[in-house]
């Protein structure tokens, strides 16, 4: 009898648990927090609901969407989306609108932006190893500095020049030409438009979804145990035997046949007993995370600003993003005369900001809110602070190397699968985290061999499958024409055609042989409708036909490349306009 323990009650873990119950299993979910939802939770303070990070419910994965609709259905609200960037005491539309951006910057700055753009178009970075180089080559350094640099550095805490290409590559994978072309074939433009203008959102935030899923799991005989921290994972060789959980100082051992874990993979390695070899431990210790804290403020005014959220690029304040929860869902705010805001500060667990007392953080947030001009300090009536550890796995210079070691060891554990953003140390969004949970269960129950590490942010797993079917078609349509071969073929056809046309008339004979065809002599010196003219016509036809074929091939190849370049550019622009969502 299969007995599955799932470590982590976030989207990945709970999706896995829900899927297992469909197969008649009764999994046990262990969640160390007193609430479910993981990074996608809703926290409550005096009846106000706060979404940690702001989670739009949008996915291109049909199975995930189906789960959302099955679980919450009528509880979803279709919300209009508005977000802006605050920079240099001005607000800019986000996704970026070129005209709005240039107007907002002022004439002088706009001219510098254009000049910078031209300069980097003419003399780009020869290598695109970093995020900075990648964006600069496409938009110029000045635009990069204004709209990408400060926010990205606030989020990650390291200079953009040190953000490795690997990070950029994963986040911008959608820009590979192949994906662009697939986008043309597979994704209707309407979807993209919808994504930009509106989104679905549970009435009481994302936590509502996960509370409902936890309820479903328990209804079907599974268990969701909150506040239970896994302190040890016991193994014999490459098999996990049990996990030890701690609750209020007491430990309990839970044996199982199979384990699925969404806890940070580095923690998992460090909690193994007996421990893995030292190089694996060392690699796990080297994996790092970025954390954030949300200062939640209750403000005594309604309709402070129309945005769902605002990106704060200005360096004069430390806040990175501001959520206005009433604009996500009015039900998040119990008092309609007030607003609740979430000021998000990106930091690293244990650093000065993380350790700042809540009272001082509340003071800082109120002050910065006033600096930005969204409300006065006097308007702030109450507040609290929520800290979110390990929110983002960091892709630093050496993470990939450490991940090879960690993954190598984890893959060797035969009855354990890791899932979710932190379980895989991949920057997956909620929907992809859920997908890893689904696929892990299929591996376990159906004996499938889904590679969970391949499920990532922009490469749609299911589209990858469809892609395999589409690839031959793309290969058929997009390769170049061989100009010389075409010239040879059309030349041969032209030469033969003229030869046959001439010789046929010669053979037919008559008083005047081929007076009309003979007019070709105007263009082909020496050509006549005669036996020798037929041979000469063969040569002329070959040359003229060949020239025609070669020119056609050249034009077709050029137009094809231009076409592809234009599509690529358009998609690059489109993605860059909403790039902050991927930061």
């Amino acid at each position, binding site marked *: 009898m299969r007995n599955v323990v799932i470590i982590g009650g976030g989207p990945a873990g709970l999706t896995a648990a829900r899927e297992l119950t469909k197969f008649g299993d009764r999994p046990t979910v262990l969640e160390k927090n007193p609430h479910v939802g993981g990074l996608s939770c809703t926290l409550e303070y005096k009846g106000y609901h706060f979404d940690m990070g702001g989670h739009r419910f949008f996915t291109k994965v049909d199975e995930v969407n189906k789960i959302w609709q099955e679980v919450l259905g009528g509880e979803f609200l279709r919300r209009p989306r508005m977000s802006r960037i605050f920079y240099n005491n001005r607000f800019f539309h986000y996704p970026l609108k070129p005209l709005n951006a240039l107007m907002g910057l002022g004439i002088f700055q706009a001219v510098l932006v254009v000049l910078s753009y031209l300069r980097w178009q003419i003399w780009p970075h020869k290598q695109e190893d970093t995020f900075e180089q990648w964006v600069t080559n496409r938009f110029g350094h000045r635009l990069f500095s204004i709209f990408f640099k400060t926010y990205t550095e606030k989020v990650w805490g390291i200079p953009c020049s040190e953000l490795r290409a690997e990070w950029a590559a994963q986040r911008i*994978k959608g820009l590979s030409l*192949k994906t662009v072309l697939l986008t043309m074939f597979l994704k209707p433009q309407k979807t993209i438009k919808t994504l930009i203008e509106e989104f679905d959102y549970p009435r009481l935030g994302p936590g509502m979804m996960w509370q409902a899923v936890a309820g479903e799991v328990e209804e079907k005989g599974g268990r969701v145990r909150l506040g239970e921290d896994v302190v040890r994972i016991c193994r014999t060789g490459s098999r996990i035997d049990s996990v030890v959980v701690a609750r209020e100082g007491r430990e309990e051992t839970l044996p199982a046949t199979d384990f699925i874990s969404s806890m940070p993979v580095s923690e998992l390695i460090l909690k193994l007993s007996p421990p893995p070899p030292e190089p694996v431990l060392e690699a796990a210790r080297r994996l790092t995370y970025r954390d954030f804290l949300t200062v939640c403020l209750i403000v005594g005014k309604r309709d402070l600003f129309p945005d769902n959220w605002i990106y704060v690029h200005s360096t004069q304040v430390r806040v990175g993003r501001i959520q206005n929860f009433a604009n996500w869902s009015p039900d998040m705010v119990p008092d309609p005369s007030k607003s609740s805001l979430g000021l998000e500060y990106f930091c690293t667990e244990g650093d000065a900001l993380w350790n700042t007392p809540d009272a001082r953080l509340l003071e800082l947030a109120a002050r910065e809110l006033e600096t930005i001009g969204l409300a006065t300090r006097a308007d702030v009536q109450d507040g609290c602070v929520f800290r979110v550890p390990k929110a983002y796995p960091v892709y630093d210079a050496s993470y990939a190397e450490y991940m090879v070691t960690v993954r190598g060891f984890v893959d060797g554990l035969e009855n354990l699968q890791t899932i979710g953003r932190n379980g895989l140390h991949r920057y997956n969004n909620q929907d992809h985290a859920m997908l890893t949970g689904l696929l892990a269960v299929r591996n376990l129950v159906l004996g499938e061999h889904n590679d969970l590490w391949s499920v990532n942010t922009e490469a749609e797993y299911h589209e990858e499958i469809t892609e395999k079917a589409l690839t031959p078609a793309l290969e058929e349509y*997009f390769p170049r024409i061989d100009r010389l071969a075409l010239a040879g073929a059309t030349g041969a056809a032209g030469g033969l055609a003229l030869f046959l046309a001439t010789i046929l008339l010669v053979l037919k004979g008559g008083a005047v042989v081929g007076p009309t065809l003979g007019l070709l002599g105007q263009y082909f010196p020496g050509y006549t409708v005669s036996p020798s003219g037929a041979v000469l016509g063969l040569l002329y036809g070959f040359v003229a036909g060949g020239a025609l074929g070669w020119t056609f091939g050249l034009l077709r190849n050029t137009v*094809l490349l231009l076409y592809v370049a234009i599509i690529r550019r358009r998609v690059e622009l489109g993605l860059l306009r909403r790039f902050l969502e991927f930061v």
Partner: protein
Amino acid sequence: MDDPRALEHLLVSRMVRFNATVQGVVTGLVLGLIVFVATIWLVIKGGPVVGPHLSLLGQYFIGYRVTVLGSLVGFAWGFVVGFGLGFFVTATYNWLTDLRHRSTPRA
């Protein structure tokens, strides 16, 4: 094609091949239609002498005249010649391309 850059590589390194029969049929239909429409057009326009130049095609297309019936004969001839031309050009192109890129795997 697992490498996301593979298509870029494909664009600059791979040469397209065509289906000779398909190209033949398409060229045949186009040429047949051109002859048909050109003939019918002159027939409808009418006049003392109908299509003196176009009727020269009769030198090659046995039975062809600038008449309604001739337009159908012209379509048939146009298709045959067009098919032959399209098929020949495509087959020759594919053959030459294969000769020039023996090491490039076919799509």
